[in-house]
């Protein structure tokens, strides 16, 4: 199996591609909000320049971080370490998305993020272009680091960096396309539903690899993955319903929308 061959063939590769695609889409929606805000205030050349610089750095991180991991770290150790990281990330995304779905936490508001960025950049400053460039660069880089961890981790655990990086690239392109079509109305993208689905997949994937790395013999091997996705997905749906019924969903969320 080639490190960079592109077509997913097993259930774990399909879950890998879906998880990376969803995670990248969620993070890129937030990054795109910042880029569009910079474009509207400091000019599109500045915004796209900053975003492109960050994307190049993120791509380099995938190659620099991923290839040595795949080449030199024993597969079982790698899977246990990567599985643990993915499980941690997945659980955090899952809990946050369930709480937002139940109305306990305020949802991430792209319109508010856009307005705040425009207001910050509209304030008089010495070098507006440099400031805009820095904001676009930092926004894309910060949102993208988590994606890099997922791409490198999930890709390395299966020795399939190619499909993982390809899925991330496709999601970034799709979100950029959606941004052009929706023209600033990024709040229309169902970000929390995506986050919930990715949380379920990352948790399933992480648990599967952490167990596999430790030597656990999952029944049916990779056939366990869709079962884990189904179980955690059903649990998440039940918890969202319970949270809404418990009365929290009826009141307005008092906690500030946290960054993802």
């Amino acid at each position, binding site marked *: 199996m080639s490190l960079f061959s592109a077509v997913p063939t097993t259930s774990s590769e399909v879950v890998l591609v879906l998880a990376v695609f969803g995670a990248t889409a969620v993070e890129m929606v937030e990054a795109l909000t910042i880029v569009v805000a910079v474009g509207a205030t400091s000019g599109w050349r500045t915004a796209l320049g900053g975003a492109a610089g960050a994307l190049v750095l993120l791509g380099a991180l995938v190659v620099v971080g991923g290839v040595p991991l795949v080449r030199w770290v024993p597969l079982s150790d790698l899977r246990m370490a990567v599985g643990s990281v993915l499980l941690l990330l997945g659980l955090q995304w899952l809990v946050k998305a369930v709480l937002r779905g139940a109305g306990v936490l305020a949802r991430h508001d792209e319109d508010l993020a856009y307005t705040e960025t425009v207001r910050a950049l509209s304030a008089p400053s010495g070098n507006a272009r440099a400031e805009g460039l820095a904001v676009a660069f930092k926004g894309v880089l910060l949102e993208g680091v988590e994606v890099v961890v997922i791409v490198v981790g999930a890709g390395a655990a299966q020795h399939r960096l190619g499909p993982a990086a390809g899925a991330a690239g496709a999601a970034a392109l799709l979100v950029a396309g959606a941004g052009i079509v929706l023209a600033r109305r990024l709040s229309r993208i169902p970000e929390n539903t995506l986050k919930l689905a990715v949380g379920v997949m990352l948790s399933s994937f992480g648990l599967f690899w952490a167990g596999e790395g430790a030597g656990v013999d999952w029944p049916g091997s990779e056939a366990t993955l869709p079962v884990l996705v189904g179980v955690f997905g059903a649990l998440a749906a039940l*918890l969202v319903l319970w949270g809404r019924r418990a009365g929290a969903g009826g009141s307005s969320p008092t906690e500030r929308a946290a960054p993802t």
Partner: protein
Amino acid sequence: MRVVRAVWRAVAGESPEMVLVVVAVVVLALVFTHRGVVVVVLPLVVGLAVTASVTTRVRQLRRRSGAGNQWKGS
């Protein structure tokens, strides 16, 4: 110390209890590798941890908003 705190914040995020859950999962997987029941126990631990985390946060919010007191009084 600042670096340690920054790393912990980055790793633990807003759900630091999940770090313990992941450690518990790895330890259980290593200790009970060859027991068949481990394939049920591991997802169960994860499921219970998510349920506990969500229910705790929801209850905290109800207490904070006073809904808990009304409920107790009824």
